[in-house]
């Protein structure tokens, strides 16, 4: 009976979603406060039922109930418990349920932390989120029911989870990514609510900012985790492939970044109002587009589960409804709002505008590269693939340009700033970063790398410009510590965001430039020399895991005759699924470099094909991502988002504070 309960809970959640989408909106349109007030309880109710459904699915996986088709296809009794649990979202149906559950989580969070918002705004926002929820619940129930049963011929054993997904990375990467992806629905809902109520003022920007920041932070962590997982799990040391599905998560990230910045301008100065709304719509539309690309099976990718045109059609229609509906609303309402203030050419507004233009262009080039093969195929012009060379050639120059302005923007003042002032502030930083950038490759490599020089130039410029700005902002304080204490969390968030970006870019560029990779045939006793390290292959022995058997190699890494690491890469053959083979790389990780070893295939005479990598600075890119995400969270926790509440309503503020403590 358990699966039926889960199914039933999902249907009840759909009924509540229908009510949540309609009642509060009717209330807001007719001024009926009682109807508006239903929004919060309906969101909570929906959360309870979707949670119930999700818990049931988890329980079914934990119990290995193979009468449920999904469990039979994606789990196995031999699977360790943690992977039985993560198998819940290691497939199409389950990951969709996770998606809907996270959407309800965001809805209930909005319901809880919106005490300072006018009631009709809450009603409109939650009603929009209810509409999105209807779409995804229908999708789940109509095309991808996770609780479908096979009551006859129940298999004794499940087919097992794809071994690639039996990994800790998969336990956390999808939930993080989804929290970010779906989180943009909040910014979207706020934008639509503001449009529909006709109140496109600075207030909605202030309400959306913390939500957008948090969503963006999760998306950043999700993407970084995905990259890290691919790096150690796919067995060949790659960390970003410009795979269509990676792009699908990267495009909302780029536009989310633009949105965070344009929200700042809208809130502080009342400019770019309608532009910001448009960005919020684009960000969420790209999330939906990503879902379509991943879930329709139109793409070749590690992320695509088996193809199903019906599902693709459903999401495509939903995508058109959402994009079409919101753009129509935008076209009707946006022309009525005009920016009320002006700004000079040299001003922070202007630099934020450049940021937005560059990020939008960057997103469009990625979108073009992602959709080009699909369009050509659809028109019958041949089956093309657009690979990393295209994306690198297009994306990297745009980012370099962005970095130049990222350094100047924070030092510029709102409304008007003088060129002379900017030059006085930043000239030294610019000169120092160029000098250090040019010198850097001389220290590191035997051959001079121009790309590395440029990477150090731009990244250092970004970091130094932050240092200059902090010094300027603390200039009037009694001493440095007092000055630093006076700076707001939002400011520190911005600094961390920019510094994290610089560190990430350094990691990406330097590891691309200085990595060394060799594929070798190694017999026991063979020693390979690479990047100043000696890799000695000691041979391999048989191993036995819970649901696989395999071989484990031993490679001693020596530097100057001293043993610095014993690496044990594995080759596994999983029992289920006709014995799928998996490579488990072993990594000696470090802040300055990773040594990465993977076993290819067994050859004659106990020899193995072995892959050796030396990857300097590779950790920096994920570290940078984490710093950026931390910055965004810090900014979202800035006091002023709560101070407003105190001014408006003391009681509401108390309850909000109680919630944020609890």
């Amino acid at each position: 009976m358990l699966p039926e309960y889960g199914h039933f809970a999902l249907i009840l959640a759909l009924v509540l979603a229908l009510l949540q989408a309609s009642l509060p909106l009717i209330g807001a349109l007719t001024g009926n406060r009682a109807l508006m007030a239903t929004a919060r309880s309906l969101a909570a109710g929906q959360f309870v039922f979707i949670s119930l459904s999700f818990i049931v699915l988890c329980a079914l996986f934990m119990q290995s109930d193979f009468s449920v088709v999904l469990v039979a296809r994606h789990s196995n009794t031999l699977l360790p418990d943690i992977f039985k649990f993560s198998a819940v979202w290691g497939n199409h149906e389950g990951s969709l349920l996770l998606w809907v559950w996270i959407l309800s989580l965001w809805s209930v969070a909005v319901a809880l932390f919106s005490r300072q918002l006018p009631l009709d705004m809450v009603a409109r926002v939650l009603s929009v989120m209810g509409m999105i929820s209807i779409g995804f619940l229908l999708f789940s129930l109509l095309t991808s029911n996770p609780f479908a049963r096979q009551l006859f011929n129940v298999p004794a054993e499940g087919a097992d989870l794809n071994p690639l997904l039996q990994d800790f990375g998969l336990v956390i990467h999808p939930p993080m990514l989804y929290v970010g992806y779906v989180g943009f629905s909040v910014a979207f809902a706020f934008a639509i609510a503001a449009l529909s109520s006709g109140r496109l003022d600075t207030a909605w920007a202030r309400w959306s900012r913390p939500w957008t920041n948090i969503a963006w932070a999760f998306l950043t962590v999700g993407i970084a985790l995905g990259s890290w997982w691919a790096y150690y799990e796919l067995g060949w040391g790659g960390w970003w492939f410009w795979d269509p599905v990676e792009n699908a998560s990267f495009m909302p990230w780029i536009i989310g970044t633009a949105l965070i910045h344009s929200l700042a301008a809208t809130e502080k100065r009342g400019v770019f109002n309608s532009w910001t709304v448009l960005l919020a719509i684009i960000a969420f539309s790209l999330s939906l587009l990503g879902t379509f690309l991943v879930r329709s099976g139109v793409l070749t990718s590690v992320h695509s589960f088996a193809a199903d045109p019906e599902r693709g059609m459903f999401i495509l229609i939903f995508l058109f409804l959402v994009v079409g509906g919101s753009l129509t609303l935008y076209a009707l309402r946006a022309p009525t709002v005009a920016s009320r203030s002006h700004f000079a050419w040299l001003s922070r507004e202007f630099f934020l505008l450049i940021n937005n233009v560059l990020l939008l262009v960057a997103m469009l080039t990625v979108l073009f590269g992602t959709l080009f093969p699909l369009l050509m195929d659809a028109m019958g012009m041949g089956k093309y693939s657009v690979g990393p060379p295209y994306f690198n050639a297009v994306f990297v120059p745009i980012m370099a340009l962005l970095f130049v302005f990222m350094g100047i923007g924070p030092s510029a003042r709102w409304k008007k700033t003088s060129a002379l002032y900017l030059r006085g502030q930043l000239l030294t930083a610019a000169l120092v970063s160029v000098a250090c950038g040019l010198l850097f490759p001389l220290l590191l490599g035997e051959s001079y790398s121009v790309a590395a020089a440029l990477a150090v130039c731009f990244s250092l410029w970004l970091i130094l410009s932050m240092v200059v700005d902090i010094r300027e902002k603390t200039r009037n304080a009694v001493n440095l510590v007092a000055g630093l204490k006076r700076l707001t969390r939002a400011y520190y968030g911005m600094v961390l965001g920019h510094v994290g970006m610089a560190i990430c870019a350094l990691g990406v560029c330097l590891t691309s430039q200085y990595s060394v990779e060799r594929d070798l045939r190694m017999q026991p006793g063979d020693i390979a020399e690479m990047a100043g390290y000696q890799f000695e292959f000691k041979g391999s022995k048989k191993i036995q895991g819970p649901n696989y058997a395999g071989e484990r190699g031993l490679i001693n890494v020596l530097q100057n005759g001293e043993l610095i690491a014993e690496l044990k890469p594995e080759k596994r053959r999983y029992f289920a699924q006709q014995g799928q083979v998996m490579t488990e790389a072993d990594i000696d990780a470090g802040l300055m470099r990773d040594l990465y070893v993977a076993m290819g295939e067994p050859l004659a005479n106990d020899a193995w094909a072995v892959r050796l990598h030396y990857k300097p600075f590779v950790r920096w890119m994920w570290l940078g991502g984490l710093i950026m995400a931390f910055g965004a969270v810090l900014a979202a926790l800035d006091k002023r988002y709560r101070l407003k509440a105190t001014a408006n309503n003391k009681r509401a503020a108390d309850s909000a504070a109680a919630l944020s403590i609890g």
Partner: protein
Amino acid sequence: MHPVRKQRLIVVLLIVAGSAIAVALAAYALRSNINLFYPPSDIAAGKAPVGKNMRAGGMVLEGSVKRDPDSLRVDFIVTDYSANVPVTYVGILPDLFDEGQGVVASGQLNEQGVFIATEVLAKHDENYMPPEVQSALDAAQQNGDKAAAPLN
């Protein structure tokens, strides 16, 4: 001109300029960096260009995989069951590479009609087939049916 209009005009010009740069970059990058996929039938029929980056794919013919004993060189044959293309690759093959399985290789075709692969991709789980390979097989199947029809 009204200052607000002027500002708006310049903003629009900026966006146009930005997009123009992006389009130029994209066009330049696309010229050399996109690879067309050719099924084995097309390659065997001489429809694929020699010495140009492209992708080829199909099923790995049973019994065709030969490993060089002293290096990482592997030779195998890719087929859509109506035509065969020999492929040479030096390096480590993906985990799910096997005889009778679908693969997509990128590289160049040489004068002798051998495909020199620089990268070999296999499918990533047991139930999944790269769409290019599937459509190549379907096309070969259809042609085969057409050819066989008059005999029946």
